Each structure stands twice: as structure tokens, then as C-alpha cells.
């Protein structure tokens, strides 16, 4: 029997943080890898709209994959952030307890954390917690402190993993939607629709020895195409408000609320870029595209966040958004091959703590696939990647030197976030460069500030058009269909 020929060894479905982490870890091995992404860019779904937190790992049930991946993922973050130049800070986290009767719950969380292997956990009195975070309310009677909790830029984490994977040979296909998966010999055949910017999509097939299903809220759909052991993923919507950087020092640690008689709480956290983020709500919805905010959920964010943290300056909200967590009924990560679908590797049900777990999930699945394929490790894996310089954060000499070398680093386009033309140009010219305004925003924070792209939109559109040759009329906010203008005046 002759060896079956495949278009690719591994097809990864989904360019979120999980898919990119798996692709990056797989690229350590001598494998042909192709990542298929429905939209125009990586980090376009769940990975772009979440709490931007690296959880310590006390939440998940002891012995669960969730607990294991979370704690391991957290541990891997220092190295990963250093290697791939990802904005990351271990700011620590607090879980607030509001009543004596909830104390057993806080104790249980502590014990679970210790069991899960979370280092440095401490239960603090209300006063100790307030000493640590002066803006906590007097309602706080105790708190669980986890020094290993962290905050990260989820965009740059995903993009860094993707760029590094790309540099190590992973092929990224954007605007490529998988519509069907069939068993074919020992491997799989995937039918894909390639969306053209014009809307006329070409249908092709791709054969792969292995498939990684990292399709977020759609992972159940692909899983159920190949396995009779059906899974069901419910999009669980979380609504957030983002506040101006002026409010970014309101708290230093990530402040959670202990789930109690008032339901699951709302977190208040600084972001790694110095904004304040509050949210999320949790609403199970039917629509896998239902990323709208609602008045009720926005009101809930405000009302509940005030319980643990006082004087939050809600007037300084600069934007609100909603993301969908891929909630699987069993509330556990589904990682690996279903019994009846060998060679098909799920990374399904990746809800919180999915971002924190991504580095570990990447390693876990890549090792599994490498073992099964027998592929050897590459001799020349490139383990590091350098991000786009954030010019405004540099010291004066370094910044001046850079502008002397590349004058476009001296032209500020986004005045709120101090993003230069050079950084925007970099975001477009890099491997897997931005092709949309949102893509630029996620890479260099243009338009992320308090004016929300009011001033810099026209200029950024021009730069994107100039650098890519995309005509102005075709410049999109994100995927085709989101064109910014409708013609010439």
C-alpha cells in the first residue's frame, strides 16, 4: 500500500490564540502546517474580546484539564512573553469575599488553588486587602491573593504566536472558511470557501493527515462532522467597558468577586496598556455571531463592578464591547482525539481560562501530534520574535535615534496613543501584516485611545491603501463587507 499523499500534514482550523499557539508549537517539528482562518486576520473572534488576563489557576476543578492547562500556561508566560515580545505583567489578583457566610467559599478556592499547584496564594483580611488596594469598598471582608495572576495584551499575544509560527514555516490562509470535513483514508479532506474581497468565493478542497479543531464557538460544528460523540458549544456572551488610561491606576491588581448569593461577579482590572477594564457579564445566547452589547448587560457591568471597587470613574468609559466564550456543557476543555476520529485533534470548549491556557494547550496538542506523526523536531526552530517598537514608550535617546534612522517614526498619526506612521507601516509590512483598520489597531493600538480613531482614521486608511495597494473604497474595518467608504464625493 503506497503512502497517502496530503496537501498538508496538519490543517489548523481557527486563527485565535489557541490555533496560533498550537501552530507555533507544531512548527517546532518537521511538519507541513496550514492554518485556515475565516476572517482577514488572526485574533478576530473570542481572542480579541475577553478579560485580557492570565489567570493564576485556582478556579478550575482540581484534576481537570482546565486546571492543568491554566497553571501550566501561566507558568509558561514569562518565557513566552520574553521570547515573543508580548506585553505581559504579573500584577497579581484578588478574589473579594463580601460576607462572613461566603468565607467557606473563599477557603475552598484557596484549597483548590493549592491543589492545582498555584504558588503563593494567601487569604487576606478585608483591611489587608484594602491596604493593598485602597479603592476596595468597605464591604470586602476577606480576599484571596494570587501573586501569579497577570495581565496581557491578547492581540499581541495571538499575533506574536502567529508571526513566529509563520516565520517557522506555517502557512496562514485568511478569508478561508472550512465548510465541510470528511474522513479520507487515514486523514481528512476539508472543503473550504475562499472569500474574495469581491464576495465571489472559490470552493476548494484541502487534504490533511491531521486536523486541529481550534474553531472557538464553532468547534462543535467541526467536531460533529467527524465524530458521533457529539459536543455542543453555547456562546456565552460577556460584555465589557473599557475606561480611559486616566482611570488605569484605579486598581493595580485584577479584582474578582467571589461568586456568591448575588451570582457571578464582575472583575475590575488594569490592562497591560494602562486602561481600566470592567466586565464581563455572562449571557448564554443562540447566535454564534452575537457580539452585540445590550443596555441591560452594560448596566449590569456598571452596577456589579461598584460592589467591590469604589469610585470607578464611569464617565471615562471610552468604549464597550462584547465577546463570546465557547462554553461546552461539561465546562471542561476538550483536548485531543475523539475515540472515533483518529487524527482529528480537538481544542474545543476553550472558554475562560482559555487565554491563560493557550501556551500549554499549544504544547500539549503539538506534542501529541508530533508523537503520532513521528515527525522529528526541527534543527533550526526560531524561538524568538521581536515586536513592533512602541516608539512613544522609548527613552528619549533611543527614540531620537530611531527617528533619525526612520523618519516616519517621528510622524504621530494616532495622537491619543502616540502611534507613529512608522509603527503603522510596520504593522502592515510585517509577515501576516494587517490588512484592515482593526488589524492595525490590534497590532499598534492606533485608534485604541480616548478619541476612538476620530482623528486618525482618514490618515490610517491612506497609509493602508498606499502600503497594500488596496483602493480606498475597499479599505475595510475588518473583513470584506465592512468597507469604510462608499465611493468618491
Amino acid at each position, binding site marked *: 500500500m503506497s503512502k497517502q499523499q496530503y496537501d498538508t500534514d496538519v490543517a489548523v482550523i481557527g486563527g485565535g490564540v489557541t490555533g496560533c499557539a498550537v501552530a507555533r508549537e507544531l512548527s517546532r517539528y518537521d511538519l507541513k502546517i496550514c492554518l485556515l482562518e475565516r476572517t482577514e486576520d488572526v485574533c478576530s473572534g473570542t481572542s480579541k474580546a475577553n478579560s485580557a488576563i492570565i489567570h493564576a489557576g485556582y478556579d478550575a476543578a482540581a484534576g481537570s484539564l482546565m486546571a492543568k492547562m491554566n497553571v501550566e500556561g501561566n507558568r509558561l508566560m514569562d518565557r513566552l512573553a520574553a521570547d515573543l515580545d508580548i506585553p505581559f505583567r504579573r500584577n497579581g489578583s484578588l478574589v473579594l469575599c463580601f460576607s462572613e457566610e461566603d468565607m467557606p467559599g473563599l477557603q475552598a478556592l484557596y484549597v483548590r488553588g493549592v491543589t492545582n499547584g498555584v504558588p503563593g496564594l494567601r487569604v487576606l483580611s478585608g483591611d489587608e486587602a484594602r491596604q493593598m488596594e485602597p479603592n476596595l469598598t468597605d464591604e470586602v471582608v476577606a480576599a484571596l491573593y494570587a501573586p501569579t495572576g497577570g495581565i496581557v495584551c491578547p492581540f499581541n499575544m495571538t499575533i506574536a504566536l502567529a508571526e513566529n509560527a509563520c516565520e517557522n514555516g506555517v502557512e496562514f490562509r485568511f478569508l478561508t472558511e472550512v465548510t465541510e470535513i470528511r474522513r479520507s483514508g487515514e486523514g481528512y479532506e476539508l472543503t473550504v470557501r475562499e472569500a474574495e474581497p469581491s464576495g465571489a468565493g472559490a470552493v476548494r478542497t484541502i487534504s490533511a493527515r491531521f486536523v486541529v479543531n481550534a474553531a472557538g464557538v464553532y468547534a462543535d460544528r467541526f467536531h460533529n462532522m467527524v465524530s458521533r460523540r457529539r459536543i455542543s458549544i453555547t456562546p456565552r456572551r460577556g460584555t465589557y467597558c473599557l475606561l480611559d488610561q486616566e482611570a488605569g491606576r484605579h486598581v493595580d491588581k485584577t479584582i474578582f468577586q467571589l461568586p456568591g448569593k448575588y451570582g457571578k461577579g464582575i472583575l475590575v482590572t488594569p490592562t497591560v496598556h494602562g486602561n481600566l477594564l470592567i466586565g464581563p457579564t455572562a449571557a448564554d445566547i443562540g447566535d454564534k455571531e452575537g457580539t452585540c452589547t445590550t443596555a441591560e448587560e452594560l448596566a449590569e457591568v456598571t452596577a456589579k463592578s461598584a460592589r467591590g471597587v469604589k469610585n470607578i470613574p464611569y464617565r471615562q468609559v471610552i468604549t*464597550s464591547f462584547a465577546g463570546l466564550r465557547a462554553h461546552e456543557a461539561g465546562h471542561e476543555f476538550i483536548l485531543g482525539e475523539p475515540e472515533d476520529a483518529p487524527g482529528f485533534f480537538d481544542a474545543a470548549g476553550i472558554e475562560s481560562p482559555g487565554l491563560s491556557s493557550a501556551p500549554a494547550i499549544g504544547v500539549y496538542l503539538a506534542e501529541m501530534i508530533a508523537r503520532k506523526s513521528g515527525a522529528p523536531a526541527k534543527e533550526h526552530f526560531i524561538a524568538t520574535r521581536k515586536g513592533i517598537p512602541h516608539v512613544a514608550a522609548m527613552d528619549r535617546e533611543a527614540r531620537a535615534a530611531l527617528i533619525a534612522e526612520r523618519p516616519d517614526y517621528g510622524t504621530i498619526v494616532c495622537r491619543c496613543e502616540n502611534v507613529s506612521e512608522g509603527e503603522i507601516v510596520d504593522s502592515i509590512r510585517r509577515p501576516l501584516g494587517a490588512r484592515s483598520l482593526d488589524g492595525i489597531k490590534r497590532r499598534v493600538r492606533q485608534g485604541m485611545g480616548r478619541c476612538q*480613531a476620530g482623528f486618525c482614521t482618514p490618515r490610517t486608511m491612506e497609509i493602508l491603501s498606499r502600503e497594500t495597494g488596496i483602493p480606498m473604497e475597499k479599505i475595510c474595518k475588518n473583513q470584506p463587507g465592512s468597507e469604510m467608504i462608499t465611493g468618491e*464625493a
Partner: protein
Amino acid sequence: MQYHDIVIVGGGPAGLAAAIAARKTGISDILILERDNVLGGILNQCIHNGFGLHTFKEELTGPEYAARYIAQVEEEKIPYRLSTIVADITHDRQVTYINREEGLVTIQAGAVILAMGCRERPRGALNTPGYRPAGIYSAGTAQRLMNIEGYLVGREAVILGSGDIGLIMARRMTLEGAKVKVVAEIMPYSGGLKRNIVQCLDDYGIPLKLSHTVVDIHGKDRLTGVTIAEVDENKNPIPGTEEYYSCDTLLLSVGLIPENELSKGAGISLNRVTSGPNVNDRLETEAEGIYACGNVLHVHDLVDFVSQEAALAGENAAEYVKRKAALAGERNAAETAPAEKNAAAAAESEEDERPGYAEPDRHTIPLVAADGVRYTVPQFLETSGMRDTVTVRFRVADVYKDRYISVYYDDQLISRKKKKVLAPGEMEQVVLTKKSLAGYPHMKRITIRTEVE
């Protein structure tokens, strides 16, 4: 470090008028720093007419109005840098800017004039629920795309907010062939000028729905429609009043915010109502030698008033620089003088270290806005250095009919003027004279209020 007598941050209408006035007051060493690649600021995209009725007694377009000031700047050979962003201003007037030619440059300024203008309030600040598709623009961004870049932002539009830019854009989009379906305003009155409502909406049959707001935004990629609802007196949507409008564009004209990040960086406190610096009658901020004018100080309705205010800031900054130079001259002379005089000079120098306007016999009188007057600019009067007249500008909190605008020195009514209509969209002013203050050497406050009787 480079030194310039006056550094002006912003080359829009305020910065230009300030520069020209400072030059005419006798200061030659002036530098204007402008972030855009042309002078003129937002006027360049305001291609409609209606500018300059007060200043030039004729109706000009925005670019024409700007051109007259730019011509004077060129004529006076006042230096300026374009595509230059000011990164930082310190309390003691060190200004750091960045551009591609020079990199980072720090200047010691004799005086600084803040003229950075304002920005538009974005959708995010409203917390409007719904999706976040393409096709939602602040009105000014759409105006720039249409009038400067030459692109149509959409074909069917709804406008939220009846600020002047929104009204102007309703007409502009209509003229470009787009259908503007409605302008929704959450307040029971428009925030724009009456003449704009007539000339931009009424003349084109565009409905203005007062006490209405957008409660939902539809469409995941490009906007497909919005839901508008009526609001109650607390601005909460009234269930059952929702109406769906299909549209591909939503323009927001929901307020302007003075851009004072640099002012804050210089340690200058901002007024809660204006979001601009607190200033004295010379338009000097809390930081000595740093002046503010135009929309960075408070949002104006007419550019003519911006020009007037900025000219005053320019003159005052120039006088400040001259006085400092004179003082330095005296001090140099004093160095060779007897010890007694030296002590006096030292005392004077200490005086100089105080924040604010440095005069030994200063008397600071706060201006208080009350009873329907939302704020005043200036916020303080300093009688010692006061000019013969001081124009106090303000806005009212609501639409009022047949009310008086009254000025009180402490509890004493000084003047009252009847107004048929007062509206938040229009800036009001009263003029205080130095003469009238003479009889009140120990005044605690000046109050400006509206009164029914």
C-alpha cells in the same frame, strides 16, 4: 536648549490669531507648532459658509477664514512647524515636540499659548448598545473624509446629536446625494445654532427628533440600521417608542471635548464644566506664563469669538514676556546696588515663584456661575493687572425664554440685560469694566446668573 519667547501649541484659528496678536504687541520670537500638515486646523474641512460675520463683516467659508489669518502669519513671517506633535509641556514651560525632520526637540518658552482645540466625543463614551460595524463616524471625521479626502462615507444616514457639525453634515451628505433620514437629539432642544437647524435641516426636509436617541446598532460588518427611541425626562428610552431606520451610516455629533492632555501634563487643573483650564482675566492658567484660548479653553459656537479670545491671549502672553524681560533687567541692575535694594529684589523674586499672575498687590476675585449659567470663562479676575474691560463668556444650562442675565458684585446687582431666548447652543457674554470694580476693593465674588424677574 533652544529658547523662544512665545511657543503656540496649535495652528488652528486660535493659534493663528494668538500669534498675530503677540507679534503686533511687539514680540518677534514666536513659534507655532501644528500637528497637521497645513495651518488652519479644523477650519480647513469646514467648507460651508457662515464664518467671519463678526470679524470681517462678511460670510466666508472655513478655509477662506483660515486663509486670511494664514496670510497674516506669512506676512509677519511668524515661524511655524507642520506635522509636529507636542509630546510634553512642563509647568515651567519646557515644550517638547516631535517631527520627522528634527526628531525630538525641547524648547524653553518664555510664554506658552495652549491652542490645541477639541476632539469629538466618540460612540464609546455614550455606551450605546449594539454591534460595532463600519459606518459609524463622528461627524467631524466624516466631514474630513468628504471635504478633504474626497470620499463619500455612505448613502443612507442617520445622525445622532444635533451639534453644529452634525447639522452641517446633514446638509453636506444630502448635497452629495445621500439620504439623511433623521437627526435624533437626546435633549429636548438642539445643541446647535438656530441658523444651522433652519439652513441644514428645515431647508432639506430632514426631520429633527428631539428627546430621541439611538438604542440599538445593527449590522456586523457594515452598519445596516439603527433603532431610535424616545427618551423620558431622565433621558431613559421609553419602551414601545422604538423605531427602526435602515441606514449604512451613523454620524455622531454628541459633544466636543477640549483636548487638554498636555495641559494636565503641565500640572494645570481643569474646570469640571468646560473641561478646559481655569484661567484668570488674562487667560493665564494656573501655571505662570501658560495661556489658553479657543476650543481648548472652552468649546465655542463661532470662530469669530475664538479669534477675539486668542488675540487677547496673544497680547497678554506678549506683555508677560516683556515684563519678565524688564524685571530681569532691573534685577541685573540691582546686583551692583546696595544690600537694601538687593533684599527687595530677592523678595520680588520670591514673589515670582508663586503660581499664577505675579503681582505684589494682587486681588483675586472668583467668578461664580449660578442659576442657569453653567460656567464662566475666565473663572477668576485679578484686579491688579486688569484691562479696562473684561469679556466674560458662558453658556446656559437649558433653553430659557424672557430671562435676564444679571451680574452681581457680592450681593449687589450691577447690571441686568433681558434676553428673549437663551439656549445652550449659543455662547453668551457680559462685559465687566475696570471702572465698575473701583468701589469694591474687598469683593469676595462676582456672580453671573439668569433671573426670571
